């Protein structure tokens, strides 16, 4: 079971933004879904992901790419060739 407090914390971690009114609804839905996920408790977790895979490498060569103008074209706020983002502190 997760509480409204847990869901609020998850929303914070995910930077998703959640209103007081939404909390109760999301929490109820989460608990229904997580109850269903409990069936996975019956699966033995050992051995997962142990597969015979090999990486495919390539030379790191410069190839044609987008121009700086193209890369910045969809940003509403740019400055001196940079994206402008909200302040960190």
């Amino acid at each position, binding site marked *: 079971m*997760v509480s409204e407090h847990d*869901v609020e914390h*998850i*929303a*914070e*971690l*995910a*930077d*998703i*933004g*959640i*209103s007081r009114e939404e909390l109760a609804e*999301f929490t109820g*839905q*989460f608990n*229904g*879904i997580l109850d*269903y*996920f409990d*069936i*996975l*408790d*019956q*699966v*033995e*977790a*050992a*051995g*997962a*992901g142990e597969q015979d895979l090999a990486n*495919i490498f*390539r030379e790191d060569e410069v190839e044609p790419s*987008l121009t700086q103008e*193209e*890369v910045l*074209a*969809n*940003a*509403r*706020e740019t400055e001196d060739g940079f*994206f*402008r*983002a*909200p*302040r*960190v*502190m």
Partner: protein
Amino acid sequence: MLSVTFSPEDRFHAFITTLPRAEPEPGRLSGIPVAVKDNISTRGIPTTCGSRILEGYIPPYDAHVVSLLKREGAAIIGKTNMDEFGMGTTTENSGFGPTLNPADPSRVPGGSSGGSAAAVASGMVPLALGTDTGGSIRCPAAFCGITGLKPTYGRVSRYGLIAYANSLEQIGPMARTVREVSLLMEILTAYDPRDSTTINFPYRHTPDPEIRGTRIGVPEEYFGEGVDPRVASVVWDGITLLERRGAEVVTCRMPSMAYALAAYYVTCTSEASSNLARFDGVRYGPPADTRPPWHEAFQERRREGFGAEVRRRIMLGTFALSSGYYGKYYARAQAARQQVRDDFVRLFRTVDVIAGPTMPTVAFRLGEKTDPLSMYLSDILTVPANLAGVPAISVPCGRSEGLPVGLQIMGQWFRDEKVIDVACAFEQGVSA
């Protein structure tokens, strides 16, 4: 030239963006109208993923599959509606309103490639591209009465597909007939080194409807609890038709089906929580307010820009990957995913393809599915192919309650050709 609203002729709201003009170029698809799902990047044409958070975004490059369509002279006439970022089974989760099912406009077209299916089913285009993460090509194909193929994972480049769940999704062809799906598949599988999960194994194939001696496995689980008996009956009739054409039908078991849906939803939401972190209003889409602090600005932008289902899945995935829960959810989901693969490996030792219904029911009424979990449960028959990475097609297989039913045929890894052949045999049998 561009219209970003639904045009009045688009009776089923199949499109988010339509392009009224295209100059015919030479090629195998010269002048043929093709619709492209709106999560596939098209240079100079708005691409929204059905989300308000990408409203106004104009990709500066083409997806590999779009370059291939253009090289063959296709007329890309629009971008089709979809559940936001592919998250849904009805196309009702679009930020631009739902698509209607041309077979019955009071019903959903299925999802998430509902716009592409409706565009084909209504005759607006002969060919369309969809994407399939957990059934998003096959479900709308079944609900709208058309054909749609999810290729083997790694056969079609995802370069330029805006990612939702990378380890599961594939771009694939949708059309009315198997031959058209096969033709489009030939074009889509040209190798692309820019997607490191693809291999150089182009599909070059003429559908062969001769299936004498083909062994078809029918898992009991595909006709079990939750599957509408009327749908099951229509699909059994279809499988019997294949038997009459010389195939050998054997029943089998897929015990991993008990875990497949939970494994799928843990995996796709986990991948989504990471993939969708990039939508913050800084590089594209409606801008974030740059005055408040970072987290506050992003939370506000994402609360406004994402719909409820997308926010639900991002939070579920964040939870499944969070410290203290990773072992309980994500790690076990991957173990269950391995069991699904193991089931397919075991079955394919004795059968060539596996058949069953595509969807457990016919198309839902608009507004019928309000509870998220009940919507998730309807994906139970399509997610195994994505978890394992095997090819799977849905072909029209008659009707139940007057609505289309899809027959699903799953094949071995990189034997998309065999899936096409069995589907072709079925289609010929129906029209014979």
